[in-house]
């Protein structure tokens, strides 16, 4: 997928805002939002939150997981667990990137938070690379006790393995099919050859 499309999907995440004006509820197709009451926190889709922030119509409320201590724990958990852990947000990379751009002034310890998210992403990428190795070497090999799992992998992360992983795997499967065909053909010929030789003698 296009990075822009992944961002587009991430922008649908519901996000907290504190509007600075009053307005009646708006019935969007995706959801009803509002009513807007100045100073009262409420939820809107991220795309709208960002638009409103740009127009200085609101303050963005950070999701609870954009927090130094919480992310430090998350990083430790990610290190300990051999599998991908469940992220607090399906689109954590997209959402954090957008918030770093549009709500930088509202994020305490922003540099540390940025680094932590990058670290977690890197740990997960390293796991993804080992998973790719495992898939491509073949699950049937000796390491069969290690299970390949894509659970909890987020869309953006899946996209970093695409198209390479599915493509390479398709290619290997294709080669294997040709190989099997070829070796069964070889068997056929040896069989018919021996059949031929036995009949001549």
């Amino acid at each position, binding site marked *: 997928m296009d990075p822009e499309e992944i961002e587009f999907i991430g922008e649908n995440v519901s996000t907290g805002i504190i509007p600075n004006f009053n307005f009646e509820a708006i019935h*969007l*197709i995706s959801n009803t939002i509002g009513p807007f009451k100045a100073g009262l926190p409420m939820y809107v889709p991220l795309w709208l939150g960002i638009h409103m922030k740009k127009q200085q119509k609101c303050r963005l409320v950070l999701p609870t997981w954009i927090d130094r201590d919480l992310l430090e724990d998350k990083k430790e958990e990610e290190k300990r667990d051999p599998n991908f852990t469940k992220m607090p947000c399906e689109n954590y990379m997209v959402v954090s990137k957008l918030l770093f751009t549009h709500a930088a002034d509202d994020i305490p310890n922003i540099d540390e938070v940025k680094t932590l998210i990058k670290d977690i992403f890197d740990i997960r990428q390293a796991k993804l690379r080992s998973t790719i190795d495992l898939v491509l070497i073949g699950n049937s090999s000796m390491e069969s006790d290690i299970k390949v799992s894509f659970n909890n992998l987020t869309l953006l992360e899946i996209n970093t393995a695409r198209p390479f992983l599915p493509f390479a*795997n398709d290619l290997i499967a294709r080669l294997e099919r040709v190989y099997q065909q070829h070796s069964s053909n070889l068997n056929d010929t040896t069989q018919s050859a021996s059949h031929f030789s036995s009949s001549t003698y």
Partner: protein
Amino acid sequence: MSDDELQLFSEERVSNDGNDSEDMDEELITPQKLLQRIESAWMNEKHSPDILPFQGEMVDLMLGQLAHMEENLEAIDRNDFRKITHKMELERIRFIVASYLRCRLQKLEEFTQHILTEERKRPPDKKRLSDAEVKFAEDFFESVERHFQLLALRHIPPNQDDITKRIVRPNLMSNVFFRVVKSCGTVVNTNDEEVELLEDSQHMLPYQLISDLIIKGDIQLI
């Protein structure tokens, strides 16, 4: 207009045409649900190598809604907050619908012969293309063949070109990523191992092994 927007949706009916997915038996569809269905169809179509059953009714309903909403918005001042918000959402949904339809057209153009042949074999209740798509694919196929004829084939001896040898087929064994929406037993992968499809689990498997589960709605391509 704010309150009648929702009512307007609930008046729309989704007819029960015996489509193969079982959740079609509900008569009314909320706008949220309609949007979710289209988003899901879009993602499935984008990631599947073959063409999937067309969600024509959903598209028609949505386009109708978009047109209606646009009409209602015309009366409102262009700087009105409500208008801007609705317009932004309209643009987003329009993108999804357009991208969904483009994705299908692209498959029709690339695998024209293959898709048309398969479609002809399907019984009436299992058709995957809309009438307009069939027409587009047939006309497109004809235009390319006529072009080949005009510029190359008529200048060489007859029967030197075998049309069946240049059918372009999608690789149905290509690997796709998906999330299980509803637990649906196990699938045997290409290494003869059983893969358990538990709700919310994510997997990568060849499309052909799980294509029926996509159509049933038990899994979602991602």
